């Protein structure tokens, strides 16, 4: 098996020593100008940081060491993510690292693993994720982009959307319909396609900030080799779904809200609202919600540290975190008064950007399973309420 970089044995370190190592690594290597970026970075902006992580063997915390990952335990992955978030490290174009890599490691053929994994680590392949479609969002299993086998090739037709950073990617992994009739989840397969394939068209979508963060991707008789199927035909749904195991805890990390609360405090001091008792009671409620969220997050993290798996109730974290994040930015907008309607941060200080953070927060209750879908799932799987 290929091991492009010999990584140190992080699991030999204690949790405290590992946390210190992550802090040191970030302080030593993270490009200063990329800290706490106001928007999702494009590949040309993030490339240097990606390659720094890769060259030190720090790019893929969850992958086993024999594939060039860090081979971290769940407990150390929690520390890794926590420290990166606390530092305000720039998020990478990371779909290959977080989503595709682990799926290939579990379900891919030996050829697929040895071909694709090293190219993710080297930055040669930048992946995007083709799951959602215009009529398959929360109801993802209704997806209609289809792939038909024609001799030794799959022929793909259809449209994907909300494809994050597709304009930067040179490969896409996608869920396609390969069988009709029967349960809609059972006719879905997992395919890999180069983005320069004839018939693929990418159209960036401007998000509410007017950033081109995601795209529509159109497939018009796109042909890829039969061998680009990952796992068994018609089993793509359960593969893709099983992928997000304990990683779902990260959607409920307290860091996003902690960061926002710090900005709220900064803003309140700047605007003179900090000593207003009405504001201070609002702030205290938010601070208490964050502290309790942190405690709840730790109870789930403790389960992971004890080697237990997480149940569907981990979604409680995602719901609470995203809604708390929104309530914090709502409070920012309230104290910002007319500044709330201005396009640029107050006085050009990007730490004083209530409107920008408020807009960013809109997405938190939508992506990764909307709050409403999460509540549907919890009602049925945790409370056992009837359909």
């Amino acid at each position: 098996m290929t091991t492009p970089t010999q990584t140190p044995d992080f699991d030999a370190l204690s949790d405290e020593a590992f946390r210190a190592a992550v802090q040191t690594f970030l302080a030593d290597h993270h490009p200063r100008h990329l800290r706490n970026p106001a928007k999702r970075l494009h590949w040309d902006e993030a490339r240097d940081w990606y390659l720094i992580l890769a060259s030190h063997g720090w790019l893929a915390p969850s992958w086993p060491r024999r594939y060039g990952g860090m081979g971290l335990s769940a407990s150390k992955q929690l520390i890794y993510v926590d420290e990166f978030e606390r530092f305000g490290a720039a998020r990478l174009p990371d779909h290959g690292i977080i989503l595709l890599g682990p799926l290939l490691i579990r379900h891919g053929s030996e050829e697929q693993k040895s071909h694709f994994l090293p190219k993710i680590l080297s930055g040669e392949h930048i992946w995007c994720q083709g799951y959602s479609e215009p009529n398959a969002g929360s109801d993802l299993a209704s997806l209609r982009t289809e792939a038909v086998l024609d001799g030794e090739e799959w022929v793909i037709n259809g449209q994907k959307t909300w494809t994050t950073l597709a304009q930067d990617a040179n490969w896409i992994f996608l869920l396609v319909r390969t069988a009709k009739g029967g349960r809609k989840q059972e006719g879905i397969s997992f395919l890999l396609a180069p983005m320069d394939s004839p018939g693929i068209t990418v159209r960036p979508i401007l998000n509410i900030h007017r950033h081109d963060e995601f795209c529509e991707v159109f497939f018009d008789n796109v042909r890829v080799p039969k061998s680009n199927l990952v796992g068994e035909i018609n089993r793509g749904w359960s593969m893709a779904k099983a992928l997000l195991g304990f990683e779902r805890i990260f959607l409920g990390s307290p860091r996003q809200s902690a960061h926002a609360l710090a900005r709220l405090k900064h803003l309140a001091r700047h605007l003179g609202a900090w000593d207003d008792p009405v504001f201070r009671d609002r702030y205290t409620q938010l601070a208490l919600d964050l502290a309790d969220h942190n405690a709840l997050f730790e109870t789930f993290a403790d389960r992971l540290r004890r080697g237990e798996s997480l149940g569907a109730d981990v979604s409680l974290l995602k719901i609470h975190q995203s809604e708390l994040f929104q309530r914090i930015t709502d409070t920012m907008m309230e104290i910002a008064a007319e500044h709330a309607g201005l396009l640029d941060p107050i006085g050009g200080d990007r730490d004083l950007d209530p409107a920008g953070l408020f807009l960013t927060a809109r997405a938190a209750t939508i992506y990764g399973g909307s709050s409403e879908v999460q509540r549907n799932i919890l009602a049925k799987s945790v409370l056992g309420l009837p359909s």
Partner: protein
Amino acid sequence: MSIDADRLENIRMIRDSAQAIARRGDVRRARDWRDRLPGFDRAVWRKMGDLGWIGLRVDEADGGSGLGMLEFCALAEELGATLTPEPLVAAAAAVRLLGRNAGSDRLSGDRIVLLAWQERAGSLDPAGGASFAGGRLSGCKRLVPAADGADEFLVTTESGLVLVPRDAAGLTIELLPAQDGGHLATLHFDGVQGELLPGDAGRVLDEAALATAAYLLGVIEGALALTVDYLKTRRQFDVPIGSFQTLQHRAVDLTLQAALTRASVESAAACLDGGAVGAEAQAAVSRAKARASDAAMLVTRQAIQLHGGIGYTDECDVGLYLRKAMVLAPAYGGAALHRRRYAALQSPMDDIVDGVADGP
């Protein structure tokens, strides 16, 4: 704040032993003792003594069980889930303050002592109300739960503690009926003879506030279990009402509050057991009590609404949970009071928040 396996096993055993008094969800005793003096069962009280609960927080050297707040909170939660009427929190606070003077008869449950600390509603100050001078206690203490069943009161004053037998000359007890069917008493002291004992109630009141938060967690869990069960069985429009999305989402929101309350209470207990004192301990307790008080009122209110008309009747148990929350949400400080105290203390999240604000 990971808890080791032995400790988890201990906590599980305490929870199991609580089922000997009443099984989770069984509130018949709470219903039976409503509006009936003394409001609780002395035989059950002795059993609690046998189980080591009254002196759970008293050092082993002083005859207690020497257990921590995690254990006490687990027990209080179980008691809350069955709306147990016995005044364990007020008695446990008294014997803990008495320490080596706790005495085997009090720890066994033969003699019931309750803490009388409060000058007025909405206060956390144990010093006011009653004063001790020249060997005599004067003034009054208010809002003492289950006082009619007590054999004596441990009274806090600015100068120290005074132990007052129930039949002491100069003590009159005025009972105010409470929403949960029990009573909150005002104790009037008119030159009651006694002697001063050393002791500072501050820490013990924080522990009582946290235990009350844990009891409220039990109230929340009990009301929620009853309500989710009702959503599954009650049929309207030919379907179980729990199939309606609005009700499902509301039930999930209440479940989230229950989960936050549990995390808040248990992390505060672990914080105290870990040796936290002063502002750190107070902030943890205030956080947990503010959460538990608000969440208990929210969950029990919504439990009534989700039950519909039957929830508004005396025969339906869900109302017992609401009326217990009405008594205990404000006890040892309500949500607003504890939020104020939390804001005045150095917030434990400040380092996280300020750490982020440092920026590049």
